[in-house]
């Protein structure tokens, strides 16, 4: 299985505070992490707060400066090293990779119509030449995300959390990317809506041939949608492998603790049993 994204010995640090003279103390959010994301997979990245999973996702998309290590993107026909991209390479990279965010309320500009929000990546990257072409593409992707075409004229304040998340997804897919980082994208949604969005993501993965990096703290969700899982703790990957294997037979004590902490829906059982 070829890797779409290859992470080698990645370290990301953040400065804590500012100093006028000298370097401020740093926080190592990601410590010497190596990871292979297979092409076409739904790859789960699981961890609690402070684990560094969001930082890792952002580093892969070059949204955070990297201190050390190498990230390679290779979709079979185009390859580059993310830390050393040229401007032209970065433009192509941006059209091939996207992110979906956690907070459906903060991720959409309140001043733009839905149509403009979805069209923005197309216009920024200059991927469409005329307004009609852009409109056609917007309608196509909105349809795939089950957004009512009449709603394209509306502003974000007209929509619920779940609907906004679908708009975020449509925006992410407008340029036809191959790799999408979903950063806790169902965490802020109600349970009955979460399932809907997750089903949508899986369907889109099949129809559009996408690779997902699914970042989440919710193990039960990850267990259902992801093929592979990597568990992070305090900036390091403590265990990784195919989902069923990890959940049936967790080897690392942290993974075991995480699984044991999921409350069971059966009042007579303490934790959920994975079979």
């Amino acid at each position, binding site marked *: 299985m070829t890797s779409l994204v290859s992470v080698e010995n990645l370290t990301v640090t953040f400065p804590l505070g500012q100093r006028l003279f000298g370097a401020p103390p740093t926080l190592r959010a990601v410590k010497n992490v190596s990871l292979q994301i297979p092409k076409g997979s739904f790859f789960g990245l699981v961890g*609690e*707060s402070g684990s560094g999973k969001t930082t890792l996702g952002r580093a892969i998309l070059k949204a955070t400066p990297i201190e050390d290590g190498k990230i390679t993107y290779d979709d079979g026909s185009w390859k580059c090293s993310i830390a050393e991209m040229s401007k032209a390479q970065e433009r192509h990279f941006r059209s091939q990779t996207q992110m979906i965010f956690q907070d459906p309320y903060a991720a959409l500009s309140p001043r733009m119509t839905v149509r403009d929000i979805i069209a923005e990546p197309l216009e920024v990257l200059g991927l469409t030449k005329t307004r009609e072409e852009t409109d056609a593409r917007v309608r196509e992707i909105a349809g795939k995300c089950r957004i009512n075409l009449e709603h394209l004229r509306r502003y974000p304040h007209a929509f*619920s*959390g*779940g*609907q906004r998340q679908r708009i975020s997804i449509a925006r992410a897919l407008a340029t036809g990317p191959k790799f999408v980082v979903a950063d806790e994208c169902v965490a802020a949604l*109600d*349970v*009955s*809506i*979460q*399932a*809907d969005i*997750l*089903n949508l993501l899986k369907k889109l993965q099949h129809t559009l041939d996408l690779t997902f990096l699914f970042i989440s*703290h*919710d*193990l*039960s*969700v990850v*267990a*259902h*949608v992801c093929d592979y899982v990597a568990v992070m703790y305090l900036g390091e990957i403590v265990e990784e492998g195919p*989902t*069923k294997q990890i*959940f049936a037979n967790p080897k690392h004590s942290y993974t075991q*603790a*995480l699984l*044991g*902490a*999921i*409350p*069971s*829906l*059966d*009042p*007579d059982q*303490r934790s*959920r*049993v*994975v*079979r």
Partner: protein
Amino acid sequence: MSLLSVDNLTIQFRTDEGLITAVENVSFDIQPGEVLGLAGESGSGKSVTAKAIMQLNGHNTVYDPASKIVLHGDPDIDVFSLRRERDMLPIRGGAISMIFQEPMASFAPAITVGKQMVEQLQVHTTMSKSQAKELSVEMLDRVGITDPGRRFDQYVFEYSGGMRQRAMIAMALTTKPRLLIADEPTTALDVTIQRQVIDLMKELIDDFGMSILFITHDLGVIAQTADQLAVMYLGRIMERGPVRNVLRNPAHAYTRGLLNALPNLEDLDAPLMPIPGDIPSPLERPSGCVFHPRNAELAPGSRYETEVPPMTEVGPSHFAAVFPEDVR
């Protein structure tokens, strides 16, 4: 004799867009020493209900005159009859305590944790300052905070997330309330910390014997902590009963839908089953049974579209908002 009875609670809010109904005809009882879980998604009205018990809703709240909340005891206190703020004081923090989702928002950031706990005790009891301090340190220890004497003098930002929640529980229990209202206390916590806090609360229930009104959207958490479960949707109670009965034999389509939407760890290949549609905005309340537009089991033109179903008994102490002919 129940500890708290809520009868026909109807709450509306005056907004720029009109009068919106947040809670409609909600009735339930909490027995002494019992944990009632109030489950629901956004817009269900569960937080509004809890805040109504403590009269913490804002000035634009309109309570229906038929609503009644009574705290039973010696004497019985009708919460809505207490017009003045200071009449609510002995109840808030005294007979009823409340803990919230964001502990950072509950503690004053510029006053030490200990000082706040002592202040609360001084308001509600006749303890001296040193007695209050002793009890507070004891409570911090009881909730599992290590080195409580030193922590007593620290500020809340020096605590970690889980510790803050424990401190909030400690503060809520120092006055030995008869009812503890917990509004999404574990939602903001990591799952491992959540487990610890749930275990802690179960221990404290055994020790203190207080009742808890546990509000959350997480059915797993309720399964582990509650004796009784009430499921709310769009301001109405859809189903109510002992937690085992409701979770194992859900009688209402919404409860079934909610349970089906949860990822099932026993069968990782099973598809996820969302509830179709979206939660309607508060301005567009459906008629009849508020859940009917999303109920895939209903045939078009059914009674549920126009009539509000009554709370029908479907099992021992187990009620659901269905018409008697639809009880399975």
